[in-house]
C-alpha cells in the first residue's frame, strides 16, 4: 500500500511551497488518475515521491507498506519498486539504451539480493517486452533517448517500466505527444502490467487515455492541493467543462 500523508513540499532552489497538504491512499491493484491545470504541482509531486534532490518535504510523510520512505535515496526507492515515467525523458549521450537498462535492472536485482542477469539472459527478457510495445532493436542500440522522437521517448519509458516490474508506477503525462496508435500500444502495455499487487498513479490532461486505462479514482489537483476526488466520470466532466467551475 502506498500512502501520502499531509504532504507539504518546498522547492529549495526558490524556497517556494508547491505542494500544500496532500493526502492520498493507494491500495495494491488500484489505478488513480490525477488531473489539474498547468503548474498545479503534479510533476513536483512525482519528483517528491521518487526522491529527487531539491524537493524538500517540510511536513507530512510518504509511506510504502506503512514504512516511511522519506529517508531513502532515490535509487533505493526505485529498487523498492517506485517507478516514474518522466514527463520529459532525459537524454544521455554515449550511453547505450540497452546497457543502461541492463545496469538499471541489475542494480535493482542486486539491491534486492537477487542474482544479476548476464547479457544473453537480459536480452531474452528485454526482446519479449520490446515486442509487446512495438519497439525495434535499432532503437535499443542507440544512445539513451538521444534523438528519439517524443513518442519514442514515451514508449521507451513504458518499456523500462515493463522491464523493472515496479510495484508503484507514476506516469507523468505519458500520453502527451503520442499518436493514436502509440497511445493504444502504451495503454495496452500499462494494462498488461495491471495486477493485484501493482498500483498506478497516472497524471494526464486528457480524458481519452482514461478510456483505455480505466482508473478507480480521479483526483483534481490545483495549487498544490487535491480539491476533488471521484470516479472516472470526473474526467469526463473536466473534458467537457474545464477546471474553472471546480476551482471556484
Amino acid at each position, binding site marked *: 500500500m502506498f500512502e501520502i500523508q499531509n504532504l507539504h513540499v518546498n522547492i529549495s532552489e526558490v524556497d517556494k511551497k508547491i505542494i500544500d497538504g496532500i493526502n492520498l491512499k493507494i491500495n495494491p491493484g488500484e489505478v488513480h488518475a490525477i488531473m489539474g491545470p498547468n503548474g498545479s504541482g503534479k510533476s513536483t509531486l512525482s519528483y517528491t515521491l521518487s526522491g529527487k534532490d531539491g524537493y524538500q518535504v517540510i511536513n507530512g510523510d510518504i509511506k510504502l507498506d506503512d514504512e516511511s520512505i522519506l529517508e531513502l535515496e532515490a535509487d533505493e526507492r526505485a529498487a523498492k519498486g517506485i517507478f516514474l515515467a518522466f514527463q520529459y525523458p532525459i537524454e544521455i549521450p554515449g550511453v547505450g539504451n540497452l546497457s543502461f537498462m541492463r*545496469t538499471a535492472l541489475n542494480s535493482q536485482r542486486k*539491491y534486492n539480493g537477487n542474482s544479476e542477469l548476464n547479457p544473453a539472459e537480459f536480452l531474452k527478457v528485454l526482446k519479449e517486452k520490446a515486442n509487446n510495445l512495438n519497439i525495434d532493436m535499432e532503437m535499443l542500440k542507440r*544512445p539513451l533517448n538521444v534523438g528519439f522522437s517524443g513518442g519514442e521517448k514515451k514508449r521507451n519509458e513504458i518499456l523500462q517500466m515493463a522491464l523493472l516490474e515496479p510495484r508503484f508506477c507514476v506516469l507523468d503525462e505519458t500520453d502527451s505527444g503520442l499518436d493514436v496508435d502509440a497511445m493504444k500500444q502504451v495503454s495496452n502495455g500499462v494494462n498488461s502490467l495491471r495486477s493485484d499487487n501493482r498500483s498506478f498513479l497516472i497524471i494526464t490532461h486528457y480524458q481519452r487515455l482514461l478510456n483505455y486505462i480505466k482508473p478507480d479514482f480521479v483526483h483534481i489537483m490545483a495549487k498544490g492541493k487535491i480539491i476533488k476526488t471521484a470516479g472516472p466520470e470526473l474526467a469526463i466532466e473536466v473534458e467537457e467543462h474545464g477546471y474553472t467551475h471546480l476551482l471556484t
Partner: protein
Amino acid sequence: MSEIKLEAKEGIDQDTVESVKLLGEKYKYGFSTDIDMDYAPKGLSEEIVKLISEKNSEPIWMLNWRLEAYRRWIKMSEPNWPMLRYKNIDYNEQYYYAKPKSLKKRPKSLSEVEPALLETYAKLGIPLKEQEFLAGVVGSKDGEDRKENNSPKVAVDAVFDSVSVGTTFKEELEKLGIIFCSISEAIRSHPDLVKKYIGTVVPRTDNYFATLNSAVFSDGSFVYIPEGVRCPMELSTYFRINAENTGQFERTLIIADKGSYVSYLEGCTAPMRDTNQLHAAVVELVVLDDANIKYSTVQNWYPGDENGKGGIYNFVTKRADCRGKNSKVMWTQIETGSAVTWKYPSCILRGENSQGEFYSVAIANNYQQADTGTKMIHLGKGTRSRIVSKGISAGKAQNTYRGLVNIHPKASNSRNFTQCDSLLIGNKCGAHTVPYIENKNNSSRTEHEATTSKIDDDQLFYCLQRGINEEDAVALIINGFCKDVLQALPMEFALEAQKLVAISLEGSVG
C-alpha cells in the same frame, strides 16, 4: 544562529573530506616492491651518462650521442609556458639508474625469483607464464596460458625502473621478421636500424625533457615491422617506477615499414610515495608508405594523495613521422594518473595523403594538473587529421587542452577536424582549451568544435530513479562522455580503461 550554520558547513566539509579520502585509497597500483636495487650514484654528470651507457654495454656511437645531448641539456632551461605549477625539480637529487639486483644471474625456476618482483607482475595483471618469462627464468616459454584459453594474445615487454626485464612471444614474432625487444637490446643486436632512425623524429635538441631523455634514457621498447607484415597480436609495454627518487627515462622507437600494421599499447603504474618522481619519456614512430600504427596509452602513474602530496611528474614527448604516402597513425590515450602531465602526442603528416588521429581522455582529480593535447603538422598534399579530446576535471584539478593544427602552404586539399569537450565535476576545478590553428593553404580546411559542460543533475536523477546508485551513475555518464575515445582503444583494453575512468573519479560527486 551563527553556530548552527557553522555546524552545517562543517558537516558538508566532513562529507567531502570523507569521500575524497576514499578516493585517495582507490589507487590500486600504489604498492611498492621491496627489492634489492643496484643504483648509480645520485645526480647527473657526464660520468653518470657514461655509466648508464656502460651498464647497457652500448657501442661508442651511442655513448657519444648521449654525451652530445647531455652537453646541450645543461645549457637549456625548463619550459614555463604550460599551465602547470609544480615545485622546482632538483635534477641532482634524483637517481638516473636503478636495476633490480636479482636480474644479474638468471634464476632457474620461479621459486628462485625474488617473490616481490613476481608479486608486482601479478598485481599488474600479467599472466603467470608471462611472469615467469619476464622474471627471466631459464628455459621458460611464454604465452602458453593464453593460447590454451583462447584469450587474445598480447606480447608484453616490461620495464621495471630503468631496465627492461623481458619480452614475451619473441620467437613467434621473429618468424614474421618482427623485432620486439628492449631498446638496449636493439642497440646491441640491431645497431643499424637504431642508428638509422633514433632521434630522427624527436631530435636530441627538441625540448628540455627530450634532450634530458636522450642523455640518460636507460631502457624502453623497440619495434620493427617489416614490409607488408601485419603484426598478428597486440604489442604491449608495461612501465613501472618502483625505486624511490628514481627518474624513469624510457625511450620507445617503432618503425612500421611499407604496408605494415601494428597496434601497440603502453601501460604505466607507480607506487604511492610522498615525494614526487620524475618521468621523462620519448616515443618516436616512423611510418613508411601505406603503413599504419595504432599507439594506445593507458597512463595510470600515481597521481599524488588527496592533499596533492607526491605523485609522478610526467613530461613526455611523443611524435609520429608519417613519412610515406598513405601512411597512418592513430594516438589514443587515457590519461588518469600523474600529479603533473605535460604531453602532446603529435603527427608530422609529411607523406602525401597521410593521416593522423588523436583520441584523448584526460582526467584530473584532487590536485592533479594536466596540460595535454596534440600537434598536427600538415606538410603533404591531401593530408587529413582528426582530434577528439575529452577532458574531465574534478576536485581542485586543472585540465588544459593545448592543440596545434598547422597546414603548410604546400599541403593542398588537407583537412583537420577538432572536437574538444570538457566536463567539470564540482566548482573548484578548471578546464582550459588553447587551440592554435594556422592554415596557410587556401584549398585546405580546418574545423574546430569545443564544448564545456557539467554533470547534469537531471541526467543523474534519471539514473537514480532507475535504481542505479550515484557512483555507478556518474561512471555511466562519464563513460558515455568518453565513448568516442574508449571505442578507439583495442578491444582487450577498452573494458579495463572504462573501469579505470570510473575508479579515478570515485567519490568526486556528491
